[in-house]
């Protein structure tokens, strides 16, 4: 587990998050005002809980802004590359999954993740293909789930 430190950087990051939460609370309140309904059998209605939560979230985010506490150190350059690479690769593979099929897209994703954890290119490809086929078999034929097939039938 990483250490949490209360230094200037941690304070700044905490306050940025507090600001984001405050904006989120305001957006929640705004969206709540647009909830449309004709009748509710209870006196509170569907807007009460979201309004209350928006208020509480706004107040606690101000509290958090005042006392941001500790935080872990931010990622280094390699860490940032890994994070952005993983998210981009995951979103692309998931978007293409219904079209290209589970095995193909997940083989690419698994290989990419393996490579990010220092597998050699060859072992990354082997891992990707083996894992995508293994889990396709477990979730498909073994337990009866339905997974998308690509143009090649898998």
């Amino acid at each position, binding site marked *: 587990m*990483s250490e949490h430190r209360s230094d200037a950087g941690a304070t700044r990051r905490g306050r940025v998050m507090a600001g984001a939460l405050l904006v989120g609370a305001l957006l929640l309140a705004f969206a709540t005002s647009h909830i449309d309904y004709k009748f509710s059998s209870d006196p509170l209605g*569907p807007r009460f809980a979201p309004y209350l939560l928006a208020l509480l979230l706004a107040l606690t985010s101000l509290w*958090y802004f005042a006392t941001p506490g500790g935080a872990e150190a931010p990622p280094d350059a390699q*860490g940032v590359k890994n994070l952005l690479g993983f998210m981009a690769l995951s979103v692309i593979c998931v978007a293409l*999954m219904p079209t290209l099929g589970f095995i193909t897209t997940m083989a690419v994703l698994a290989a990419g993740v393996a490579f990010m*954890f220092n597998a050699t290119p060859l072992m990354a490809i082997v*891992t990707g293909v083996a894992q995508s086929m293994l889990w396709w078999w477990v979730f498909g034929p073994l*337990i*009866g789930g339905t*997974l998308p097939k690509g143009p090649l039938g898998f």
Partner: protein
Amino acid sequence: MDLGYLWQGFGVALQWQNLIYGLIGCFLGTMIGCLPAIGPINGIALLLPIAYTAKLPAESTLILLAAVYYGAEYGGRISSILLNVPGDAGAVMTTIDGNPMARQGKATEALVASGVASFVGGLLALIAMTFLAPLFGLVAIKFGPAEYFALMVFAFATLSSMVGHEPVKTLIGCLLGLALTTIGIDATSGAYRFTFHNPELDDGIEFIVLVIGLFSISEVLLMLERHVAGTFKPLAITGRYPSLKTLASMWGTSLRSTVIGFVVGVLPGTGASVASAVAYTTEKKFNNRDGTFGKGDMRGVVAPESANNAAATGAFVPMLTLGVPGSGTTAVMLGALMLYNIQPGPQLFVEQPALVGGLVASMYVGNLLLLLMNLPLVKVFVSALLLPNWILIPAITLLSILGVYSSYSSVLSLYIMFGIGAVGYLLRKLGFDMAPIILGFVLGKVMETNLRNALALSGGEIGILFESALSLLLWAMAVAIVVGPWLYGRLKRKARAA
């Protein structure tokens, strides 16, 4: 004391398919507990959609997931002892004396003693749960919407025991979980709340999506950020089995720690990590005359392991009887029950005795299986530690995607999962715990629904929330649990100053 639910339960637990699920759960749980990369909550989050997709009945799913949970409490000690890295939060204290024992060539002694301690703690706690839990069922019929709302307030009040030294983060986590429950069609009025005209959001954020995003994806992101590569190098398993006399001499430590663990586990909001810490420090405080704790004392292994298994069992008491999770992991299991449209709470013993009995009975069987499995098969579990991250993490990633997709066949759910994972990662970096988010999510809908139903019944009169003796008791307990520790601290400081 009517234990009919338990005999009914053995009938369910001893069905061959449920025995197999229990065995699989025990094996997987021990393996998962052994691995520092994933904890029981991740394991349960990943297995739940598999069970759901395979259309396992509710009792079989519960038996499987519960076996994973308490199996992980057995498994966590393996990496604590052999690697000096706890396999899960409940095994942190086991490293203090367990690893020194392994370095002294007594790894076998440590593993056996801790395995037996885990069994004793789990079994005694189970016996306590068997007799204690049905007592809650006696008040089941007294719970209406107002009482349920007061119960939820009490459940949130117990979060104050999770706050640590940054209560604002616990509160925010809870509010975020509550806010997520407002997405979807409001059952009372039919209004669409935050669905953005997307029919896939009409049922709200799915529980599996939230759990896998928060625990698995955020964990993968944390590991990627730290670019943790390579494999673990566990110590060799040397030494001999401890004698029966040596094991028997640990009975006092085991019993004391079991009591501590069970009581802590029953308290909502605490869990195995708190239990093992309290048990270890208590044992050290009162029985460390020779100063051997921290240098390879067997009691330093027995105490936390009895406590964490007792706590894992104790956490089921509030979950089953009140519908209030005893820990983050039981919060996930509560969500599993809701997936099957089973409302946990005081009515569960009355309405579904076979389900509850089957779960409790399976835990007796599972505890025995774990003891029998852990002693000879420890080398098999250790081999899991040798898996490099470039094999393990892609597996976790694919399982996460499969878990969500196989349950909902929705690409949008996958995007939401990754989005939640990214937010979870940021929050964890800033020192937020994920358990309050899950607690808020699991309890939020019940809380809002019961509040609105109670006020609908009373025509808007808020007094209904404070009318019955049961409601007033729950409100009083909620206030006591928040104010009590603060008041106690103040009185103690005053006494010291005087």
